[in-house]
């Protein structure tokens, strides 16, 4: 799936699971880091949707992250975000090597990675859940749109 779908899906998952949203979003877009290299014409050691899209790399990162931060909540947010990326990439016909290093690709074959309805639908659905789980955003949006001020109101 495209960047925006991964971004908002990971963010929404962070809110739904009450995990650090920033860590979830970072991990949600991290597996596609290689595409930035390709775009810049720089070499990258792995093929796209290869090693960076496996649970093994997540395990390695989580161990390193926990040793460095000792923050289980950040690690959980990161893990959820990363798994969210693998989850929606499993919808693609190519699939994901969930059991890497076994070279078996698992796919639900629901939609191609660039399918507009799937991508923007995921974005819209995720934003709906972000708004539900972050009432402060709704409050701010409403107040701003109505031109109201919170001053003096408890």
């Amino acid at each position, binding site marked *: 799936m495209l960047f925006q779908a991964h971004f908002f899906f990971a963010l929404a998952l962070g809110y739904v699971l009450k995990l650090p949203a920033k860590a979830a979003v970072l991990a949600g877009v991290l597996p596609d880091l290689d595409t930035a290299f390709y775009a810049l014409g720089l070499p990258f050691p792995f093929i796209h949707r290869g090693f960076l899209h496996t649970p093994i790399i997540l395990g390695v990162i989580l161990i390193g992250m926990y040793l460095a931060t000792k923050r289980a909540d950040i690690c959980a947010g990161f893990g959820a975000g990363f798994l969210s990326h693998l989850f929606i990439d499993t919808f693609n016909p190519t699939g994901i090597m969930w059991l890497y290093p076994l070279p078996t690709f698992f796919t639900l074959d629901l939609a191609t990675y660039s399918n507009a309805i799937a991508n923007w639908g995921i974005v819209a*659905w995720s934003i709906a859940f972000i708004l539900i789980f972050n009432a402060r955003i709704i409050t701010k949006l409403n107040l701003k749109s109505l031109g109201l001020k919170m001053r003096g109101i408890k």
Partner: protein
Amino acid sequence: MNLNKDLLRLGILALFLAGILGIAWAGGYLTGRTIYVNPFQDDQPAEEMGSVSQILQELPLDKAVSVEGMVSRILSDYTSKKGYVYQQFYITDGSKEVKVFCSKYKGSVDVRKSDNVSVTGTFQKYGSTYEIYTECTNVEVI
């Protein structure tokens, strides 16, 4: 009380994920599965084995085909911008030849000149060249 809250959150998570699945399915369904012809799926209708000349006469563009032939030329591997590597070679039936362009993503195939091979993939036109596009694991040396 906490158990109820956890159950509620679990239910919402299930709803959230089910919605994501439903949206992806709807995206694939509404845009039509023909937008992406996956020649690698096992449930693709089995095609009858054809010769290279037969395929080049019928030109079944974007259709799944199965062809047998002898390897006549082997080109060097092609690496895409995203790092995917493809094998490319030509097969012939003695009178005409067609290019086979296969992805090494799921594994490569060891083909040598004069090998007889069977290839299952999508027949397509790339630029001015007709080719059979597939995964290299769908190429069998016979």
